[in-house]
């Protein structure tokens, strides 16, 4: 690592020079924009004074020449306005550059001239207008691509003139914030993970460099792969899995930009809105546009067209905070069953059976004539093209019936006119009244027809669960779980409520997607899903229906599940469901984000035999502290927060098992310390002290973590072990656990 003084001096000087140039250009740009603004104002003034026409007059032929004169003035104005906008953009860009002008450098030796050029790479380019020297190259420019595509050694790039060949002598990365060079390091591989970068800058040994580069290479394989249709990543806590997910999305966008795809082609499925904000903060780094990010619930609400859907967090809260063991167990089993491949199969069979058994056709009469019979309608539907969706076939049926009605309309109208004439003396109103009657009867008729041509998915779903024998008949050949009857009864009760349970909502969405066309996401080509272990087969079936043509990147950690247990077969399952031509499973098992001590402590909560691969930095050993009572506990927590602040930790997380617990703790200590309670939608920059329930903290990291309720009442089961694992691995540098009453048997 050439972090020696000579290099340092050189780089510092270079940085200052670059910033001065940017500042010069910024002042000039500000001046120009002021002038342009003034110019626009005066132009507009001129236009007003010299062309005082009322706009509406301008569109007649006689005033055409006046219109032309007006446009002579209008054109310069709109021209000036767009110039002005360009200046503003330039100003914003320059301001960003002064903060952090570049992040990398390569030294490229051109084959044909043997000249070596130092190429500094940043978010946009910066040229010295006098010397014409390129101080910073835009990361998207051809020569900059060498940084991303090659290590040291032979390289090339595509320029308008052709392929330019050469050699990379140096690859250096910089951490520059607020115009200050914090650190830099040389690495063959681009190190994008901030932690890895810090590691390298702190520990310069060749061994560390090798490890870091290996980790980065492992990550790069995932991030840059464009061939695999289904990329699955099992990443243990602290392996930078989430960072990989984000960078992959950014990379795909970068690739998309070069292939002229729009950023609309990529979608990231986040576990919660906190995560989404996290993404929004990281990705704009890469450019002007954001990648589309969505939580699964949004998909549900959109397709069901209702807001009254239980969110997954609400489901977790219900599951984790329930005092009634039996009820909690029922919730869990219901979710597990409805999410399973078994249930998916039952739903598929149900859908196939709908035309046979659950669609009630009726005879249709019009103008006294029997124009469609139940039997024939049903036969027609059954005979129809099975490849097309049920709703489409029903629509076709409806159109057919309407055609028959329209053919007879004229005759019908005649009859109605005669009827009206007989009834009323007002002959001049006959047409209107007859028409009114026709409209009225047509409306009644179409409602009758739509009773069987439009599917009421909710009603159908309810019927499925109200007929136990039918339900069991659909499950023929499958082994249903114990207690299935309870689950069925439970579902029937839930369907009476004014909101949909999370698991029923999923099932309904599946029913809809399998019977009706849904086009909104047709163009999506790349899907990135994080925390895949929290999803069930049903989730993946839904995703497969929504994004059939996409390539997928699925990241997860089987050890960080909530309310269920998973093993590696999870990936086999989702591989089967998504059914892509080329799929691969990559493992990220080197943990480096948390300290060694925190990682070692966390493995207590995993199944024995789990190999931990940590070579991270050292830190404090996690400690467990007992409190006599609630107020003692509060004091301990507050003291610990103070300690953390003294140690300069930016983000401190107090983790509770449930939202209920989080709220009551917050109420108790909010007046004693500056603290924020994280509920669903809070503006996040994660700097400060926060209280958060475990299930909301997934994928997030805090400098220091306090687990506030590590007692036997809260944490005692197998599922709870996983929660502790999740909670502990949210800590980067410091972890402490606190409890009142009996210590948890799991500790």
């Amino acid at each position, binding site marked *: 690592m050439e972090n020696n003084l000579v290099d340092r001096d050189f780089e510092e000087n270079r940085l200052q020079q670059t910033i001065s140039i940017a500042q010069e250009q910024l002042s000039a740009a500000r001046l120009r924009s002021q002038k342009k603004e003034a110019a626009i104002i005066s132009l507009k003034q001129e236009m007003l004074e010299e062309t005082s026409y009322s706009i509406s007059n301008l569109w007649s032929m006689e005033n055409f020449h006046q219109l032309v004169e007006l446009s002579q003035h209008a054109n310069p104005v709109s021209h000036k306005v767009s110039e002005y906008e360009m200046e503003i953009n330039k100003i914003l860009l320059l301001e960003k550059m002064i903060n952090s002008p570049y992040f990398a450098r390569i030294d490229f030796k051109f084959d044909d001239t043997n000249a070596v050029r130092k190429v500094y790479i940043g978010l946009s380019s910066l040229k010295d207008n006098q010397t014409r020297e390129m101080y910073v190259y835009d990361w998207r420019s051809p020569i900059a691509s060498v940084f991303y595509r090659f290590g040291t050694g032979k390289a090339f790039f595509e320029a308008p003139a052709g392929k330019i060949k050469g050699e990379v002598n140096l690859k250096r990365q910089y951490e520059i914030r607020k115009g200050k060079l914090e650190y830099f390091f040389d690495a063959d591989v681009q190190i994008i993970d901030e932690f890895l970068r810090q590691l390298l800058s702190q520990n310069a040994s060749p061994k560390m460099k090798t490890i870091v580069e290996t980790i980065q290479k492992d990550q790069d394989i995932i991030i840059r792969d464009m061939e695999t249709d289904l990329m699955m990543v099992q990443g243990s806590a602290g392996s930078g899995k989430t960072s990989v997910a984000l960078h992959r999305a950014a990379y795909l966008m970068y690739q998309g930009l070069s292939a002229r795809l729009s950023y609309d082609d990529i979608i990231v499925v986040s576990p919660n809105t906190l995560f989404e904000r996290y993404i929004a903060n990281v990705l704009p780094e890469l450019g002007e546009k954001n990648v589309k990010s969505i939580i699964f619930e949004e998909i549900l609400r959109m397709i069901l067209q209702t807001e009254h859907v239980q969110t997954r967090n609400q489901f977790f809260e219900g599951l984790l905070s329930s005092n009634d063991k039996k009820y909690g167990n029922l919730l869990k089993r219901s979710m597990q069953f409805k999410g399973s491949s078994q249930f998916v199969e039952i739903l598929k069979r149900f859908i196939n059976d709908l035309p046979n058994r659950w669609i009630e056709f009726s005879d249709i009469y019009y103008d006294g004539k029997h124009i469609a019979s139940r039997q024939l309608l049903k036969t027609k539907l059954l005979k129809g093209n099975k490849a097309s969706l049920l709703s489409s076939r029903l629509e076709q049926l409806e159109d057919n019936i*309407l055609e028959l009605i329209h053919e007879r*309309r004229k005759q019908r109208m005649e009859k109605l006119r005669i009827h009206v004439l007989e009834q009323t003396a007002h002959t001049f109103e006959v047409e*209107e009244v007859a028409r009114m009657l026709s409209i009225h009867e*047509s*409306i009644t008729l179409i409602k009758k027809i739509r009773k069987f041509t439009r599917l009421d998915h909710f009603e159908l779903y309810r019927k499925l669960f109200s007929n136990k024998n039918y339900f069991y008949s659909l499950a023929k050949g499958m082994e249903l779980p114990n207690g299935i009857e309870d689950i069925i009864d439970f579902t029937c009760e839930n369907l009476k409520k004014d909101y949909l349970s999370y698991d029923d909502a999923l099932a309904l969405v599946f029913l809809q997607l399998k019977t009706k066309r849904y086009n909104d996401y047709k163009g999506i080509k790349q899907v990135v899903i994080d925390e895949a272990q929290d999803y069930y087969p049903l989730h993946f079936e839904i995703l497969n229906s929504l994004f059939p043509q996409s390539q997928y990147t699925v990241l997860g950690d089987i050890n960080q599940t909530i309310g269920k247990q998973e093993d590696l077969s999870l990936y086999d399952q989702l591989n089967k469901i998504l059914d892509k031509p080329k799929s691969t499973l990559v493992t990220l098992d080197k943990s480096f984000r948390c300290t060694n001590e925190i990682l070692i402590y966390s493995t207590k909560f995993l199944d024995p035999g789990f190999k931990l691969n940590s070579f991270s930095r050292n830190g404090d050993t996690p400690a467990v502290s007992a409190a006599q009572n609630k107020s003692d506990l509060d004091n301990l927590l507050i003291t610990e927060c103070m300690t953390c602040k003294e140690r300069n930790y930016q983000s401190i997380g107090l983790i509770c098992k449930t939202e209920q617990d989080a709220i009551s703790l917050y109420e108790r200590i909010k007046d004693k310390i500056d603290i924020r309670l994280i509920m669903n939608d809070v503006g996040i920059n994660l700097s400060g002290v926060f209280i958060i329930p475990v299930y909301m903290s997934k994928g997030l990291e805090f400098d220091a973590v306090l687990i506030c309720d590590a007692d036997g009442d809260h944490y005692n089961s197998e599922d709870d072990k996983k929660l502790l694992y999740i909670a502990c691995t949210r800590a980067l540098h410091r972890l402490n656990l606190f409890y009142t009453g009996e210590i948890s048997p799991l500790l």
Partner: protein
Amino acid sequence: MIFQNVAKILAEIIDIDDEDITLETELTNEFGIKAVDVAKLVIECEKKFKITIQDEDVHNFRCVNDIVEYIERIQADW
């Protein structure tokens, strides 16, 4: 253009100023529009725009905008 024409027709039927009609004007009793007025509106629109409005579609016409869009859709299909 379609809206202006529809508004004119409707205004004449219920005897109000066509300036008082907007896209949001609802075709219900509250606005003094009776079922037979809707029928008249349908008949006149068919004449004016030279189209056929299917009777069963009329129950979708909640406000003036619905008719305007309906007519636009038919014309777009030509």
